[in-house]
Every structure is written in C-alpha cells, then in structure tokens.
C-alpha cells in the first residue's frame, strides 16, 4: 500500500481530527467523447478529493457525467486532459492491483453461474484458493442477507436480491474502494430504502471508501458523508457538500429538520447551476 499524505484534510463529520489518506485525487480532469455529431464534453475541469473511509455520492441529472467520472476512476474510460490518482497510483494500476470493486446499475450476474459461483468469479480470476473463496462467499452472502441462496441461479432471485448478490460479489475480494453506479436505480422505493440501510450497515462493518452514483437526492442524503453535485453540458462539479448528519443514519432521520435542510441545499445547488433544464 502506498502512503500518500499529500492532501490530508480535516474530516468534518463523526470523528473530527482524524487525519486521512487521499483515496482519489482528481485535478483538472476533462473527458471529451468524439462522436459523429462532433465532440461531447462529458467531463470538464473536474477537481475532487476523496478521503479514505468516506462515503461520497455523485449526484446530478442525466448527462452530467457522474457515471463517466466513476468509469474514469475504474479505468473503464480514460480522461483526455488533467490527472487522476487512485490510492496514489493511476486508475489502471489500481485496477491491476484489484483495489476496487465495481457495482453496476444492473446486477451483471452471469446467468449460467449460481449465486455462489458468481461471487467466486473475481476470486477465481485473481487466483484465490477454493477454501478462501468459500469462506468469503459465506461471509458476504450472509452480510447481504442471502444466506440460503448459494445454489440458486440469478433468474430464481428477485431484482433486489440479484443486486444484493452483485454487492456481495464486489465485497468478496475485500476491496479498499467500492464504486457503485446507481446500484439501486432499478429497484422500487421500498426495496431501495431497505437496501440503503443494508448498505450503510455494510459500510460501517467494512470501513471501505465508497463512491456512489445516484440521481436521488434522498438517497444521497441518506448515505453520504460528502455529496458532489454535478451539472451537464459540459459535465462539471458545481458544489461539494459535507454532510452534517451522523455517519450512521436510520430511516427515521428522513423526517428531521437537518435531513430536509441538506436536501434543500442539494436541490438549490442543482437549480442554481441550471443543472435541470
């Protein structure tokens, strides 16, 4: 592990005063897609620091580049300008070191593999022993509440269960960084609330850094320690808001003054930059 102490900042929430490493450092990053209709500025001059252990939400309307930014972090896209470090290295090295786990919008489970075999996939690829694989699978499937589903195929599970399985799959390799692209976007609101609470519990237990893409204000407030508000055309960061709410939240918090105030602040940031046309 590289100890990069370049941008130590004071944490504003829960445990003030703890010095933390920068997990993701983005400086002047731009990404232009060349399309048939000319260049598209997917990301424009992004500056962002994400500390270890933070839960950061990227929020904004469609086309604001939040998913693209996540994909740059994951080395699924490359920036055309500016720089980015992930755990002090390039995104490619971070990927090759298997630093992160990526949870897609769809569960992306392989239909010919059982849930257990699906969870084993990343560990098979990184060459872990079967014994270790099984231990991890048992641990994380029970953490996401899928204890008795080892031998089931994805099509035998509901959408919410499939998404939980895909989160367990990402957790099995115990990555330092969890990248989540609207993982609950396709779920109904009731399931989504439940998943949010579950995700917070997992985050508390594992102490990962999480970067979470969403277009739901309530979800961003519910989960995050830091909220990055983005705006489209060109995709850019308009505001970075540190959450005053406690680290561990419960659903009852949603009816409090502080929750509403933070939601209003995000909504204002979105509206101010004409993020929503």
């Amino acid at each position, binding site marked *: 592990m590289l100890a990069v102490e370049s941008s130590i900042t004071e944490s504003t929430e829960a445990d003030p005063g703890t010095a933390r490493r920068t997990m993701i450092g983005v400086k002047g990053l731009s990404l232009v897609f060349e399309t048939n209709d000319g260049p598209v500025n997917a990301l424009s001059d992004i500056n962002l620091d994400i500390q270890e252990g933070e839960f950061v939400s990227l929020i904004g309307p469609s086309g604001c580049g939040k998913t693209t930014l996540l994909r740059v972090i994951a080395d699924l896209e490359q920036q055309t300008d500016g720089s980015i470090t992930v755990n002090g290295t390039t995104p490619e090295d971070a990927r090759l070191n*298997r630093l992160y786990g990526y949870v897609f919008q769809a569960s*992306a489970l392989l239909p*010919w593999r059982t849930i257990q075999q699906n969870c084993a996939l990343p560990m*098979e690829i990184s060459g872990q022993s079967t014994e270790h694989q099984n231990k991890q699978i048992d641990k994380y499937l029970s953490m996401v509440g899928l204890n008795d589903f080892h031998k089931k195929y*994805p*099509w035998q599970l509901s959408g919410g269960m499939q998404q939980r399985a895909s989160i367990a799959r990402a957790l099995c390799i115990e990555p330092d960084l969890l990248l989540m692209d609207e993982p609950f976007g396709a779920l109904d609101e009731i399931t989504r609330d439940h998943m949010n609470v579950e995700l917070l519990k997992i985050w508390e237990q594992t102490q990962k850094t999480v970067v979470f893409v969403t277009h739901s204000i309530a979800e961003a407030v519910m989960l995050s320690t830091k909220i990055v508000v983005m705006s489209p055309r060109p995709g850019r960061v308009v505001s970075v808001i540190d959450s005053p709410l406690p680290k561990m939240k419960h659903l009852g918090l949603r009816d409090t003054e502080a929750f509403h105030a933070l939601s209003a602040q995000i909504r204002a940031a979105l509206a101010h930059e004409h993020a929503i046309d």
Partner: protein
Amino acid sequence: MHEKWFAIASFIVIIIGAWYLFALLMNGNQLVNNYERRNMDWTISSVVAEAYQVKRPMLPAPHQVIDELYNTVFDTRITSKRSLVFHTLITLQSTLLGFLLGTALGILIAVGIVHNRTLEASLMPWVIASQTIPILAIAPMIVVVLGAVGLTGLVPKSIISMYLSFFPVTIGMVKGLRSADSLHMELLHTYSANAHQLFWKLRWFSAQPYLFASLKVGIAAALVGAIVGELPTGAQGGLGARLLSGSYYGQTTQIWSALFMAALLGSVLVWLVSLAEKVLLRRRGLAHE
C-alpha cells in the same frame, strides 16, 4: 391441443393421399403405355389395381416403401448386406466421426477468427468459398487424394462429412463468441481478467446457445456429407451405397426406403442435439434469460 393434433393428422393424410395419387398417375401411365405397345385391352380399374403392385414402379406407393422398410429392418439379420440397419450403422459411424471433426474444426476456426483480425480477413473468404463448391464435385477428389495416401473407407467419408458440418459451426461460433454481453465484458475488465480467462469464463458460455443452434444444422449436414461420400467411394455399405445400387438396378422401392431411413436418422440426430441442448442450457440457467 386437439386442434394441434388434428392439424398434424390432416397434413399427414393430405401428403399420403397426394402420394397415392401421384403413384397412380406415374405408374398408371407406364402401365397404359405397356398395354398399348402389346395391343392388350385395359380398363381403368385394372390399371388402378396394378399401379400399386408394380415390381419396379416409377414411384412406389407408401405401403410398398413401408413393406420394404419392414423387411430390410426387422426381417433381415443385421450382419446381412440386405439389412438396412447394417447400412444405416455404417452411415451413422462416418456421420458421427465427421460431425465431431467438423465441430472441432469449426470451433477452432471461430476462436481464431474472433481473436485475430488478420485471421478473419485471411480465413473467412476461404471458409465461405469452401461451401460454394458443390460437394458432389469435390467429394470424388477428396476420396482420390486420401486414397493415394492410403486412407480409405471410414476416413474419406468422415472428411467429406466434416467438410459440410464445420461451416455452420464456424459461422455460429463466431457470432456466439462475439455475443458476450458488453456489461459482462466490462465486469471482467474491472477484475483485470486476461484473454484466457475472458474466453473460458465468459465468451465460451455466451456462445453456447449459438453453438447448439449450429450443431443442429451441423449434424444434419454431416449426415448429408456421409451419404454423398458413399456415392463416389463405390462403397459396399451405407445408405449412400444403397441409394446408388437402387438406382443402378431400377429398385425405386429400395431407394425410397433408404431415403426414409436417412430422413429418420437425420431427425433422430437433430433431436438428440436438441435434447443435449435442453439439458445443458437449462442446468446452466441459459434457457431462462
């Protein structure tokens, strides 16, 4: 359900009816010509009665073919050269060997094409050209060339079988290996999977539905190849040899029964592939997407 069976039954009745009608017209015409040449008297009813009994008819009636099939399948020892089962087994042997070789070759070419752009450009035209040449034209050459290096009997027939059956497998597998979901490809990219892992953990399984569709076409083509292969080899056995000797001696009933056996064999082989597909794909959850 009843309607379905009614439709199927009606269709069969129509086909058999049409067959009897054509048998009457074709054989009757022949009979009438015969009578007139010999200046014999004839009536419609005598022609109708005789048209279905001719020893070497232009078109044998269904019951004559069934008779011949019954005699050569059940009433003849399997070891006898008059047994249709004996000939069917010979053809089956080269069909299966040719099918296995063709499948292996087809998959191999597809893997090469999918992994290498140069191979695609250099190999694909030949693969396609190979299928535009009539198999009847190339089969004797394969037999002669392989005969020159001492390969006779089963091998040349299987090679001809392979020649026909690799093509659908190649085309299907190229498509199948490229059909991997882009999301799954990205997922494996985030795991830093190498090309080898990408193939065995993703592409191979994504290709399976395509593979089975190809195998069904491939095994039918392999059977055609085996039968065609038996024609120029002057083979002593096999359905192809049966067809050939039938046409030499004007034994139309023998030809038709061999054709029926070939059709039956083809149906059973395709059905077996479908069965394997169902079992395998269902177990792997691929049938439920």
